[in-house]
């Protein structure tokens, strides 16, 4: 798996992607919120890129931009060789749309409560058009089987299912047109561990069978470890570390990554290390230097004045931290 990263062309190439929001108003002056700044990464065929980071660090924003739900402010997204940002982005997006899918955090909210399961699952098919009724019905049945649900459920409505089942229905919809890339935004956060395991297993099975790629967004580092090939750590809208899974967990480089891993609660162990203090800086007024600097135990002078760039510190590992400049 790891070797593939070197030999295969990425299906997704993201360069210097940024997204600003205009906030404020009501007497106060408008302000620009930098939700995502200068993110660059690739996704290879058949891999899962895990995305972790503090709440509000821009994970969902990146995911939404990747499938065209949100236009980028700056930067470039290339999907399957088509650049979907910029002036001709719309047409480009239309060409590759059927290869993209998005699994929302809350499966209940992501299904129209007034549509039958069959219609929900077949929505991408219906949009595409050109299917006979029988083909469509067969495909729906096939998809239901694929996610481990009985084809007899096709006529029911979303509210008649449990959380785990709903999550699987949303995944079935995402698979309807054999996409090559799926963004999973907190797809398992609300489930208990057993149900969570069911869904994760399903995703991994599908990846193996169909060669899918995922962008997997989650808070739970254990879950991320279970599904990801590589992991990007986000902090205040910036990618601070990008690494393959094993190295990241065994040898976290960036101080924030280290703090995250140290803070994982474990049922077996009784204690965890004291967490780093302080709060994420406001995305409105960025300090001039490294964004983590006020909270970083290892910060030094340079951190306060100069923002570190994301650079390769080892094969397949990138970190944005002045500590590793010499390496």
């Amino acid at each position, binding site marked *: 798996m790891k070797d593939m990263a070197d030999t295969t062309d990425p299906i997704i190439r993201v360069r210097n992607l940024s997204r600003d929001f205009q906030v404020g108003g009501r007497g106060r002056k408008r302000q620009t919120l930098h939700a995502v700044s200068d993110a660059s990464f690739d996704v290879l065929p058949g891999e899962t890129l895990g995305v972790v980071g503090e709440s509000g660090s821009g994970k969902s924003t990146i995911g*939404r931009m990747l*499938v*065209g*739900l949100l236009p980028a402010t700056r930067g470039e997204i290339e999907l399957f060789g088509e650049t979907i940002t910029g002036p001709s982005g719309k047409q480009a997006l*239309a060409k590759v*749309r*059927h290869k*993209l*899918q*998005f699994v*929302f955090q*809350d499966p209940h*909210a*992501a*299904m*129209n*409560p*007034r*549509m039958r399961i069959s219609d929900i699952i077949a*929505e*991408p098919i*219906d*949009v*595409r058009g050109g299917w006979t009724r029988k083909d469509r019905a067969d495909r729906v049945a096939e998809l239901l089987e694929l996610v*481990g*649900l*009985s084809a*007899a*459920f096709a*006529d*029911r*409505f979303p*509210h*008649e299912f449990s959380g785990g*089942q709903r999550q699987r229905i*949303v995944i079935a*919809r995402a698979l*309807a047109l054999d996409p090559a890339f799926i963004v999973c935004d907190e797809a398992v956060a609300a489930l208990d561990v057993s149900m969570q395991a*069911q869904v994760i*297993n*399903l995703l991994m*099975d599908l990846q193996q069978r169909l060669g899918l790629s995922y962008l997997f967004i989650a808070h739970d580092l254990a879950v991320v470890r279970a599904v990801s090939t590589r992991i990007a750590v986000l902090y205040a809208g910036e990618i601070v570390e990008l690494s393959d899974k094993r190295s990241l967990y065994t040898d976290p480089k960036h101080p924030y990554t280290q703090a995250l891993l140290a803070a994982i609660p474990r049922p077996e162990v009784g204690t965890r290390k004291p967490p780093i203090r302080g709060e994420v800086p406001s995305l409105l007024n960025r300090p001039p230097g490294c964004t983590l600097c006020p909270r970083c135990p290892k910060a030094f002078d340079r951190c306060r004045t100069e923002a570190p760039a994301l650079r390769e510190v080892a094969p397949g590992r990138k970190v944005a931290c002045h500590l590793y400049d010499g390496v």
Partner: protein
Amino acid sequence: MTDATTLPAAAMPPRSARRRILMRRLWRHRSFRVGAGIVAVIVLMAVAAPLLSGGQPNAMSLRNRFAPPSADFIFGADNFGRDIFTRVLYGARISLWIGFASAMLAAAGGALVGMASAWFRKLDGIIMRIMDALLAFPAILLAIGINAALGPQVSSVIIALASAYVPRMARIVRAAALVVRELDYVDAARVSGAGAGRIIFRHILPNVMAPLLVSVTFVFAYAILAEAALSFLGIGPPPPHPSWGNIIAEGRDYSVEAWWIMLFPGLAISLAALGMNLLGDGLRDVLDPRLKIEA
């Protein structure tokens, strides 16, 4: 897959049962029941008017001018000696039709405009300003204008009333649609490549149905009343059409001496409005998934 679930099929109600459940929810709802009952009776009376009354609604007998309610004239007679009972019965046909048709037209127009302006944000400003302007058009001017263009007839009144209510419905639908458009399943549809038409009709419309339906029942009641007001100003359905509004408007000079002329159609209007509003309340509650309905 080890975890493929197989549960007894009975665990989840099949489609027809769902409809039955909905009907039962409706039926259990007290005000829906009462409202539906009232409306049903009025509709029945309108349909069965020829059976319930032998007379013709416009048949005059000036001998019986202002005959008070009696065995011959259950609701009394008007200044032409026309039987108010017969007129009210036949009037139900016109008034209910006016209420129904203008409510439906207003709903359709309002839904289209409201959803379009919620979805196409660029058009929103201009569409809503046009709606503001349309609000400024008094139903009266529309009624007169449309009367002039199409000739004085019931359908002119309907079109006038419908156009007067479109902007209001549009605002209600727009408000609801603005909420729906931000929901995840709309984004999900967009990811699936759905275009504006599909999103509007497949996703937004069904989910703004609840406020729309409730408003429709409001408009229904309003339209009947508005028809009466138009008749009062002499621009309702052309006489001798026995619409309820016309009967009342024609009886207003005799409001004290021959109170029955106004009273009975007035009661009919009140009853129909009451029925529709109760029905609307019921629909509102039943479409509210949080509500459990007491038996």
